[in-house]
C-alpha cells in the first residue's frame, strides 16, 4: 500500500474514532449513572477495543497502550470481576476523556499532558491489579512511564501466529526480525511436517501447503507416515506426514515464518544442519521476551511501595463537585441505538450535496414547465394539454418524493452532537467547582447533516453560559435559595413544523438584569434614558461583545459569549430566544430550519416585486374588511380576526415598495414563533410552491429581513422574507430602505 492510501484509512479511522468516542462517553455516563447492565458495559468495552484495534493498525503507541489498560479494566467489569463503584466510574469517565485527548493527539498532533496520562494509566493499572481505589491506597508510581511492560504484549510489532502450545509463547513472529541471511549462498533445510488429526477440520489442506512451499524453494518431498488399514481409514483425518527439503537462500526464520501458521495444528521439526538446528533450538527454548505479562496482570510492574499519585482519586468525590453526576444523562433512551449495526453505506457529504442541488434545479425546471403549460392551457384547452397536465403533475409528485428521499439521506439524529455535551458539562463542573447534571432529551430528533455540523459550537457556548452564569456561584447559594445542591441543566431537541427547536435550560439564578443594564450602559449599548422591558434587557446578552462576568473567567469570559451563538444561529437561518425568571432559571431556545437547502414557500406580490414567505409560518390568507381594522393612537394598526387582535404590518411600507393607493385588501397571517401571530398586508397572493434556497451571502451579503433568494419558474429572482427579523427591524424603527441603500 502506498502512503496515500494509508492517509485515507487514517482519516477514516479517526472519523470512526469520533463515533466510537461518542458511544463510549454515552455508555460510561450510563454506567456512572448506575446502569450497570451487560449491554452498557459491553458497548463501552467494545468501543475501547475498536479504538485500540485501529490504533494498533496505525501504530499510535500512546493510544494503544492506554486503550489496552483501559480495555483490561473494562473487561474486568464485563466479566464481573470488578464492581464499578463511584470512584471506579469516575476513573472510567476520566479515561474516556483521555481517550479523546489521545485520539486528538494522534489525529492532529495536539500535545497530550503526559503527566496526566501517566497518572491515569497508573490508576487504571492499579484497578486492573484488582485493588479498589481508596483515598489512602497508593497509586502506581508516576515514574512508570514509558508505559509499563504490561501494556505491551498486545502491541508487539508485527505478525503473530498461533504459538503452538506453550513453549513457543506469544512472540512467534519475532524471529522474522533476525538477519540470518548469509550472503547469497543457499542452504539445505529439511522440515518434517506431521499434521494433527484436526488438520483438515481446521481448514488446512496439505496440497495447498506444498504448492506454496514451492515458492519457498521446496526441492524435494517425501511422504512419510502410515496410511491406516482401509477399515480404520478416516478420510477426515490427515494420515500423511511429509519430509520436505528446501534448497534456499532464505533464512531459517523465513521458513519458520512460513510454517508458523501451522504451528498449532501440526508437529514441525526443522532438520537442518547441526549449526542451524542449534540456532533454531535456542530460539525455541528462549522464554518469550515481552509476552510474559498477560493482560490480566499488567500491574505487576507497579511496585507496591510506590508513592501515591499526586492526584489521589477518592477525595474528588468528597470535597469537589461530583463529575460523574454531572455527566448523567436524563434517560438511557439511546442505549439500544448502536446495538446492531444496520446495513449502511457511507457517502461523502459533498456527493449528496450535489444530488440535493440537482434535485433543486429540477424542481425549478419543473416549475417552469408547469407554468408554461398553464399558459398554453389557458390559450387552448385541448385534450393533449389535459394529458400533459396530468403528466406534469405526476412528475412534480415524483420529484417531491425524490427530493424528500435525498433529504432523508442527510438527516441525522442530533445525538451525535448531544452526546459530546455531558463531557462539556463535566469539565466545566470541575473547572468551576460547581455541581451540575445534564439531562438530555430528544437526542433522536433528526436534522440535516449540514445543520448538525454547525451545532456543536453554539451548543457548547450555551452550556458554558448556563454553567458559568446561569447556575449559582456556589452550592451554598443554591441551598440558601432553597434548591437542591446539584444544578440541573436540560438540553433538548424537538421538531416543530419545518424547524427544529433546541433548548438549554438551567435552574439557576436567572439573568441578573440589574447587572446587565449597568453593563450595557457602561458599554454605551443603551442610553440611561432607555426604558427597557425585562425581556429586552435579557436580550442584551446577545449583543456583540457583551459579557456580564464581573471578572473575565476562564470559562466564558472574554466577551466570547452569546453574541457568537446568535451570530452562528442567524447565519444558519435560525433564531435565538431567551426566557429568564429571576431566581428560577434561564431558558435559551434556538430555532433552526431542518435543512438549509429546500423549503415550501408562498409566493406573494408586494408593490411590483414577488417575494416568498416560508409556508411553515403561514397560518392563513384573508381579505381585509375595513371594519376589522383598528387604529391605535401610536400609529399602529390592529386587525380583528375572529375576536382577537393581530398586529397589522404593511409589507409595502416595510419593503419600501410603491403602494397602489392606500387600499388594504389582502393580508396573510403568519406565526412568527417569537412574536406570535401577525398579519402582513400584501398586494397579491400567487400561490404556494417549492423553492430552492439560494444564499444571498454567497453572492452578495447578508441582508436583514431576507433569508435568501430563489429562482422562480419564469426565471425571475424572488427574495425570501424572514418575517421575524423583518418585524424586529420594523419594531426598532429601521426600514428596508436603510438596509438597501
Amino acid at each position: 500500500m502506498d502512503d496515500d492510501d494509508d492517509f485515507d484509512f487514517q482519516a477514516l479511522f479517526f472519523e470512526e474514532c469520533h463515533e466510537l468516542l461518542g458511544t463510549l462517553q454515552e455508555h460510561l455516563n450510563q454506567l456512572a449513572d448506575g446502569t450497570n447492565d451487560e449491554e452498557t458495559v459491553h458497548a463501552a468495552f467494545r468501543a475501547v477495543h475498536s479504538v485500540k484495534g485501529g490504533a494498533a493498525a496505525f501504530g499510535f503507541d500512546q493510544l494503544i497502550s492506554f486503550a489496552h489498560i483501559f480495555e483490561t479494566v473494562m473487561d474486568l467489569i464485563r466479566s464481573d470481576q470488578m464492581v464499578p463503584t463511584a470512584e471506579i466510574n469516575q476513573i472510567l469517565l476520566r479515561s474516556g476523556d483521555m481517550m479523546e485527548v489521545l485520539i486528538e493527539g494522534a489525529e492532529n498532533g495536539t500535545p497530550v499532558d503526559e503527566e496526566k496520562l501517566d497518572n491515569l494509566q497508573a490508576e487504571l493499572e492499579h484497578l486492573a491489579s484488582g485493588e479498589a481505589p481508596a483515598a489512602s491506597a497508593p497509586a502506581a508510581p508516576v515514574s512508570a512511564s514509558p508505559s509499563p511492560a504490561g501494556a505491551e504484549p498486545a502491541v508487539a510489532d508485527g505478525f503473530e501466529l498461533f504459538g503452538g502450545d506453550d513453549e513457543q509463547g506469544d512472540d512467534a513472529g519475532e524471529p522474522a526480525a533476525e538477519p540470518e541471511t548469509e550472503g547469497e549462498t543457499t542452504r539445505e533445510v529439511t522440515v518434517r511436517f506431521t499434521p494433527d488429526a484436526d488438520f483438515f477440520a481446521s481448514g488446512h489442506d496439505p496440497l495447498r501447503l506444498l504448492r506454496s512451499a514451492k515458492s519457498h524453494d521446496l526441492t524435494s518431498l517425501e511422504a512419510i507416515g502410515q496410511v491406516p488399514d482401509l477399515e480404520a481409514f478416516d478420510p477426515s483425518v490427515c494420515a500423511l506426514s511429509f519430509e520436505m527439503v528446501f534448497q534456499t537462500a532464505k533464512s531459517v526464520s523465513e521458513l519458520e515464518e512460513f510454517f508458523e501458521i501451522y504451528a498449532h495444528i501440526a508437529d514441525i521439526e526443522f532438520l537442518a544442519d547441526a549449526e542451524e538446528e542449534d540456532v533454531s533450538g535456542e530460539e525455541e527454548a528462549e522464554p518469550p521476551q515481552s509476552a510474559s505479562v498477560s493482560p490480566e496482570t499488567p500491574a505487576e510492574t507497579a511496585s507496591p511501595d510506590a508513592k501515591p499519585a499526586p492526584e489521589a482519586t477518592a477525595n474528588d468525590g468528597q470535597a469537589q463537585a461530583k463529575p460523574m453526576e454531572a455527566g448523567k444523562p436524563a434517560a438511557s433512551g439511546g442505549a439500544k441505538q448502536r446495538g446492531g449495526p444496520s446495513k449502511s453505506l457511507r457517502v461523502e457529504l459533498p456527493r449528496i450535496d450535489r444530488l440535493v442541488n440537482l434535485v433543486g434545479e429540477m424542481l425549478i425546471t419543473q416549475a417552469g414547465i408547469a407554468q408554461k403549460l398553464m399558459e398554453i392551457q389557458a390559450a387552448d384547452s385541448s385534450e393533449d394539454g389535459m394529458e400533459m397536465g396530468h403528466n406534469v403533475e405526476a412528475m412534480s409528485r415524483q420529484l417531491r418524493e425524490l427530493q424528500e428521499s435525498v433529504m432523508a439521506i442527510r438527516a441525522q439524529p442530533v445525538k451525535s452532537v448531544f452526546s459530546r455535551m455531558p463531557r462539556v458539562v463535566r469539565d466545566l463542573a470541575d473547572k468551576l467547582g460547581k455541581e451540575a447534571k445534564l439531562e438530555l432529551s430528544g437526542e433522536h430528533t433528526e436534522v440535516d447533516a449540514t445543520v448538525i455540523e454547525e451545532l456543536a459550537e453554539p451548543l457548547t457556548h450555551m452550556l458554558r453560559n448556563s454553567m458559568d452564569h446561569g447556575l449559582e456561584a456556589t452550592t451554598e447559594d443554591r441551598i440558601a435559595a432553597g434548591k437542591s445542591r446539584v444544578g440541573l441543566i436540560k438540553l433538548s431537541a424537538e421538531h416543530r413544523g419545518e424547524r427544529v427547536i433546541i433548548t438549554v435550560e438551567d435552574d439557576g439564578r436567572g439573568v441578573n438584569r440589574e447587572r446587565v443594564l449597568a453593563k450595557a450602559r457602561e458599554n454605551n449599548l443603551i442610553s440611561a434614558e432607555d426604558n427597557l422591558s425585562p425581556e429586552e434587557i435579557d436580550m442584551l446578552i446577545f449583543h456583540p461583545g457583551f459579557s456580564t462576568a464581573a471578572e473575565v473567567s476562564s470559562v466564558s469570559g472574554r466577551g466570547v459569549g452569546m453574541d457568537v451563538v446568535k451570530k452562528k444561529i442567524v447565519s444558519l437561518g435560525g433564531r435565538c430566544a431567551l426566557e429568564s425568571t429571576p431566581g428560577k432559571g434561564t431558558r435559551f431556545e434556538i430555532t433552526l430550519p431542518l435543512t438549509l437547502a429546500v423549503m415550501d414557500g408562498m409566493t406573494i406580490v408586494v408593490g411590483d416585486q414577488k417575494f416568498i414567505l416560508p409556508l411553515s409560518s403561514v397560518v392563513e390568507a384573508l381579505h381585509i374588511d375595513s371594519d376589522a381594522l383598528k387604529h391605535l393612537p401610536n400609529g399602529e394598526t390592529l386587525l380583528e380576526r375572529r375576536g382577537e387582535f393581530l398586529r397589522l404590518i404593511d409589507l409595502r411600507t416595510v419593503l419600501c415598495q410603491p403602494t397602489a393607493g392606500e387600499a388594504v385588501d389582502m393580508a396573510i397571517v403568519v406565526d412568527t414563533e417569537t412574536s406570535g401571530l401577525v398579519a402582513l398586508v400584501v398586494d397579491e397572493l400567487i400561490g404556494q410552491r417549492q423553492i430552492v434556497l439560494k444564499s444571498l451571502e454567497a453572492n452578495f451579503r447578508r441582508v436583514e429581513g431576507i433569508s435568501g433568494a430563489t429562482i422562480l419558474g419564469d426565471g425571475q429572482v424572488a427574495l425570501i422574507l424572514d418575517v421575524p427579523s423583518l418585524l424586529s427591524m420594523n419594531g426598532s424603527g429601521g426600514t428596508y430602505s436603510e438596509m438597501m441603500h
Partner: protein
Amino acid sequence: MSRVLAVDDTRALRMMLGECLKKGGHEVVLAVDGVEALDKLREHKPDIVITDLNMPRMNGLDFIEAARKEPEGKSLPMLLLTTETAQALKDRAKAVKATGWLTKPFDPNQILALVEQLS
C-alpha cells in the same frame, strides 16, 4: 486469486483489509460481524476468511464455530485477526478449529502471503 471474506466491525480496519486484499488481486467480500459473515459465507462461498475476534452480535470465535457446521465452511481456511493475545482465547480458537491466529497490526504483505498459502 481468491475470494476472501473479510470480517471486522471497525470500518477503517475492514476497509483497509479489503483494500489490501484487492491490491493483491483478490475478490473481497466484507462483513461487519459474525452474523453478517455467516450470511455472506453462504451467499458468496469464499475461498478463505479473515475475521476479527471482538465484534457485536457474533464474535469471530462463535462465527468460526458456526461456519464449520456449514457446508461452505467445513474445510474453509478461516483466520482470526485480532489484538487479543490471551492464551485462553487462542485455545478456544483452536477448539473451534480456526485455521490460524494473526495479531494486529497486520502487515499487508504477510496477509497476502498467507492468503496465497492457505487458499
